[in-house]
């Protein structure tokens, strides 16, 4: 009885996180803010659903698998968020008028100019280590 109550609370909590993400996807104005909504069911929602599974089965041996399941989500979802966000930013899939502050704009512009200058005299110079290497890395390719 008690486990049923706990399991239902956890499952409803997990489902609620998906609902919140859905509302966020509909309501938020641009790609980058929608990304925030998309990460939520992946982290907290999944944790709640997995916790419900753990309580329901009550098996200690299942616990490590569920933990791994959550951990690998934690490891992979920021990486995909970075890839989508980075590409979205560089391909101008964002609404700049919604940003109150943008500290990346100058860096990316400078990196693009730097890269263009580097490629002209030296040909295919490849990536060299430097402060601009990170943000400038694939600026040309992504645009």
């Amino acid at each position: 009885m008690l486990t049923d109550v706990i399991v239902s609370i956890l499952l409803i909590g997990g489902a609620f996180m998906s609902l919140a993400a859905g509302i966020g996807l509909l309501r938020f104005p641009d790609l980058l803010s929608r990304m925030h909504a998309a990460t939520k069911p992946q982290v907290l929602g999944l944790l709640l659903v997995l916790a419900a599974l753990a309580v329901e089965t009550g098996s200690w041996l299942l616990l490590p698998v569920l933990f791994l399941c959550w951990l690998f989500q934690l490891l992979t979802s920021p990486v995909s968020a970075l890839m989508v966000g980075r590409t979205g930013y560089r391909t101008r899939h964002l609404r700049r008028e919604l940003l109150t502050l943008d500290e990346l704009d100058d860096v990316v512009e400078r990196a693009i100019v730097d890269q263009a200058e580097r490629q002209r005299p030296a040909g295919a110079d490849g990536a060299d280590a430097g402060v601009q290497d990170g943000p400038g890395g694939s600026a040309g390719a992504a645009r």
Partner: protein
Amino acid sequence: MSRQKFSLVTDIPLIIWLTLVWSALWQDFGPGTLIPGFIIAIVVVNFFYLPPVGLSGRFNVLSLIAFSGRFLVDLVTASFEVFWLAISKGPDLRNAVVAVRLRTRSDLILTATGHVTSLVPGSFVLEVDRGSSTLYLHCLNIVTPKDADAVRASVLRSEAGLIRIMGTRKELDELRAEESTP
């Protein structure tokens, strides 16, 4: 590409971890699973090598527990905050791209800080500058410069927590010195 044959500090934790993953997936922690898992882990680590990760050699479990607790609390409150923003503000939301310069030079802590920041709803990493250890974050609902400062402070707090868990002695000493002189 060459790599040192067998470096204990980086390989042993990796082998133990892989063995545990193997046993967890089989849902059996008996010797019949652990020993083959251990052998496979050694083979995997030696044949499919990863770029070496600079470990500091220290790991504080108590700090890890404290950090995980705070992470979960942040996760829950931030999830509801973003939900509330979706309902109350929705299309009128104002965001910002904030640069945060971290103290650390370690790739591991830079990555971990980026992950923790991305996992808590409300901010995610848009770009990483490894050379200067700078994270560029996209944050929801930043209207005044004060909000941006709050984000910077919270990211630096996460970084401090991670340094306490697995930073080098030097970073830890610098952190303590910084905290004692506010």
